């Protein structure tokens, strides 16, 4: 188990596959009448930020609870650093720091006392507790309010206190359920920065969300949940290619020129050219063809006004995916 501790430097090439810290295979959760999670499989590598995305009730939280051993697994297997959450829940829970959806604390005691309680539950030695708690609160920017009662804390402060708990625990994996849910933009940006800093420390992060643009900015890979199944999985770029049918969309705005759409369409690597508005052309290409497009417009005696590359956004992928699979967003077995 010692090799696990090493954070990978930079983005190692896939030739040396990252060690799997979470391995899920055919995981299924059945309730009396419904299947909440239906045979999902995924792996999370060390030091990765992995996003579980999908509408509410798609099975994200259930999956997380099964990984933690807090919900029984109906079928399939889950392994966390090789430990089975059903049989070795204590081992698993030692390694994972969990921030539940809308985390709660004991309002009548201070932030530091809340962490003291958790620290004692974790079994952190008495001599180290104070130091670790102070460091964790400092890390998330709650040092000044350490002795304030949590009852007065805002939503964002509570979330950060939850992250402080994970820092204090020195968890190897952080599982964050809807961490930015209900936060104002400023608070959620700060929170995402913190999560990014976890990765920099070599922590693996598994986070669930339905706020796509937020997730896109920090996730290495995502899994798109739909009705208990993983519909799509991969990097945002891969998903874009899969769902939107092309990797790159170049937008060209130009005046004049003769027969620009034809000229652009003739470029090697261009699959399709549309003209959503007069003088605006949208090219779907295999690669980034901005330079070639610019040269072509100029060669066609057009006056180039604007040139942009559309990166596939998760929002588009998500919407497009659910449109094309005529799935209503509401899933019958809500959480």
């Amino acid at each position, binding site marked *: 188990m010692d090799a696990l501790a090493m954070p990978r430097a930079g983005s190692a090439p896939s030739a040396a596959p990252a060690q799997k810290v979470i391995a899920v295979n055919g995981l299924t959760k059945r309730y009396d009448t419904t299947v909440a999670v239906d045979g999902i499989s995924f792996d999370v590598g060390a030091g990765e930020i992995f996003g579980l995305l999908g509408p509410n009730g798609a099975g994200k939280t259930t999956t997380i609870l099964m990984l933690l051993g807090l919900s029984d697994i109906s079928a399939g297997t889950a392994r966390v650093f090789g430990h089975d959450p059903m049989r070795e829940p204590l081992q698993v*829970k030692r390694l994972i720091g969990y921030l539940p959806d809308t*985390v709660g604390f004991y309002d009548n005691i201070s932030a530091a006392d809340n962490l003291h309680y958790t620290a*004692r539950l974790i079994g952190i030695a008495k001599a180290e507790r104070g130091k670790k708690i102070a460091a964790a609160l400092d890390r998330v920017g709650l040092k000044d309010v350490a002795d304030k009662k949590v009852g007065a804390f805002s939503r964002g402060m509570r979330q950060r206190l939850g992250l402080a*708990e994970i820092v204090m625990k020195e968890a190897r994996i952080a599982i964050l359920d809807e961490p930015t849910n209900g936060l104002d933009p400023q608070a959620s940006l700060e929170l995402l920065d913190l999560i990014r800093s976890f990765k920099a420390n070599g922590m693996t992060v598994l986070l669930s969300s339905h706020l796509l643009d937020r997730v896109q900015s920090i996730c290495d890979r995502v899994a798109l949940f739909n009705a208990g199944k993983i519909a799509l999985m991969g990097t945002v770029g891969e998903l874009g290619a899969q769902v939107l049918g092309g990797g790159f969309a170049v937008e060209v705005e130009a005046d004049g020129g003769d027969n620009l759409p034809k000229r652009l369409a003739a470029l090697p690597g261009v699959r399709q050219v549309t003209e959503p508005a007069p003088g605006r052309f949208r090219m779907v290409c295999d690669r980034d063809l901005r330079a070639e497009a610019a040269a072509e417009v100029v060669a066609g005696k057009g006056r180039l006004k604007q040139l942009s590359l559309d990166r596939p956004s998760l929002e588009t992928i998500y919407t497009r995916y659910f449109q094309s699979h005529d799935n209503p967003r509401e899933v019958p077995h809500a959480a």
Partner: protein
Amino acid sequence: MRREGSALRGLGVVTLKEISDHMTSARMRVLEWLVVLVALAAVYAAITQVRDVTAEDPFLFLRLFTTARDPLPSFTAFLGFLVPLMAIGLGFDAVNGEHSRRTLSRILSQPIYRDALLFGKFLAGLATLSVSLIVLWLLTIGLGLIMLGVPPGAEEMGRAFIFLLVTIAYAGVWLALAMLASIVFRSAATAALVTLGFWLFITLIWPALSPAIVTAFVPSNDEATLVIAAQSLARLSPSVLYAEAVTAILHPATRTLGPVYISQLQGAVMGSPLPLWSSVMVAWPQIVGLIAASILLFVGGYVAFQRQEVRA
């Protein structure tokens, strides 16, 4: 399937935290004052009564607990009524409170089992109740010493102490019931109302209702059968068990808690006190019944809690 590690890991931490919560809570302070004031009033009334009518009573000190003076009931009757209230007050939001504060999943994601959380909460509640009852007991005895001016004998102290233990066991039944409700009902208000309703029913209505049920359903004209059946039915109520156990312990002359045939009394010296352990033996079924009831209720809650989904 075997799981690794001890189910009780973290038990001490949870227990200490819960005790400190109870001890500092405003709710507990209100309950304590209620019990202390009411019980001391009862003891004071008992003392004045005892002083007025005192005769050659070898168990004068125990009369402190059992003597009633209009309009106040006796100390034991007060406890029989108020201890459930205290226990319910401590237990009704034990688990659903963690749900509604949204702390449950965070706490359970730490390396402990659910067992530790539930055991810890029960032990903490019981410890808190014990501390309050011991304090009350000592206060009563101190008041008795000062106002009666007669030191209690060793046997009296022994009986008073067993009375204390029985009271704690009785508190345990109601604490386990309140915790069961806190697991079954997601809303603390519902749990409190259901438990309080059950408490009123079982302490006030049930003892009166059971003879009626027996006459309605037992097809017998034999009076002894009817009395015994009614008594067995009434004993389903922990309050009845408690009252009977206390009677046997604090009235040394009590030879039986059920009906007796004249033939069984042959050779008995009526009114002479039983030795301490014989009194305990008379009350033993009731004491075991109280302990068994709390274990049953706790196990019911435990099973429900283990099967419960963690998510809010």
